[in-house]
């Protein structure tokens, strides 16, 4: 997987967590998914389609999700409250939204679909023609994982555009 396509997701997650948690996120590990991804905590999935297609899974240790939800409400939040998985969904939405905005500025066209809570313990394995990368971020409130699976569906629009000849 091209790092220049992953970088917007990393930058976006860092920025979103910094804004929502008021704390830094440090990337600790990067690995390739070999089997179906097994979630570590509360996870949400967002699908995107277009010239590059795929999905991201944002997976937060419950302590991290509770911290962000608590920042919003201004109170202590019980991990069982529905606002906690909602928080993970909205964070996933923000991360992918900001990342695809950056990629769109570089010529890629996307459509992003609403996030959904990942209820099963294990995700379906990324397709044969997809590559999935798992990033682990460390925050003061717990680990946050980002699983990015994408495949190249078409060449970048500007690469396909006719070249001007003088």
């Amino acid at each position, binding site marked *: 997987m091209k790092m220049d396509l992953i970088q917007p997701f990393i930058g976006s997650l860092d920025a*979103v967590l910094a*804004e*929502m948690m008021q704390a830094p996120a440090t990337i600790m590990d990067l690995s390739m998914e070999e089997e179906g991804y097994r979630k570590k905590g509360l996870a949400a999935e967002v699908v995107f389609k277009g010239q590059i297609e795929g999905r991201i899974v944002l997976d937060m240790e419950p302590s991290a999700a509770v911290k962000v*939800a608590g920042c*919003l*409400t*201004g109170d202590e939040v019980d991990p069982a409250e*529905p*606002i906690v998985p*909602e*928080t993970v*969904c*909205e964070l996933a*939405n*923000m*991360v*992918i*939204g*900001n990342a*695809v*905005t950056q990629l*769109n*500025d570089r010529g890629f*066209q996307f459509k*992003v*679909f*609403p*996030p959904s809570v990942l209820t099963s313990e294990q995700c379906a394995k990324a397709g044969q023609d997809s590559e999935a990368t798992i990033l682990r971020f460390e925050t003061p409130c717990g680990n946050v994982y980002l699983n990015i699976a994408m495949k190249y569906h078409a060449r970048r629009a500007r690469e396909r555009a006719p070249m001007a000849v003088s």
Partner: protein
Amino acid sequence: MRQFEPLTRKDHQPVRYLIVDDSVFARKSLAKMVESFGGELAGEAADGCTAITEYARVKPDIVLMDITMPQMEGIEAVERIVQEHPTARIVMVSSVGYQDNILAALQKGARHFVQKPVKPDALYEIIRYVLNDDGVTTPVGALGENSQ
């Protein structure tokens, strides 16, 4: 959360907001922000269809509208609300901030755009701009000076 100088209507009543987002988290977060601006939550909707009926029911001063939602997306909802209510003031609030989306929303009648995660200062300035643009509402006290 920081308290802002209240934005009020010309009749000195609180500005009334309709918040449209499929995420409960986002709706709560925006509701807290507009309360800190001195506003009042007039209604909420989780999709574009409900936004249209809620707009007609509550007649808000400002709509904060997400783009990516199930059933009917925000841009289509903007088009339909503005068709029926040409003076509707709608601010798009979305994590997807690329040019095509912004342009489409503005062409359908949205007044402004703010990208998630929303910074309260930025949203406050945008709402003040949109309200003053119509000359319908004025902030209490001196314009351009936020209280801390």
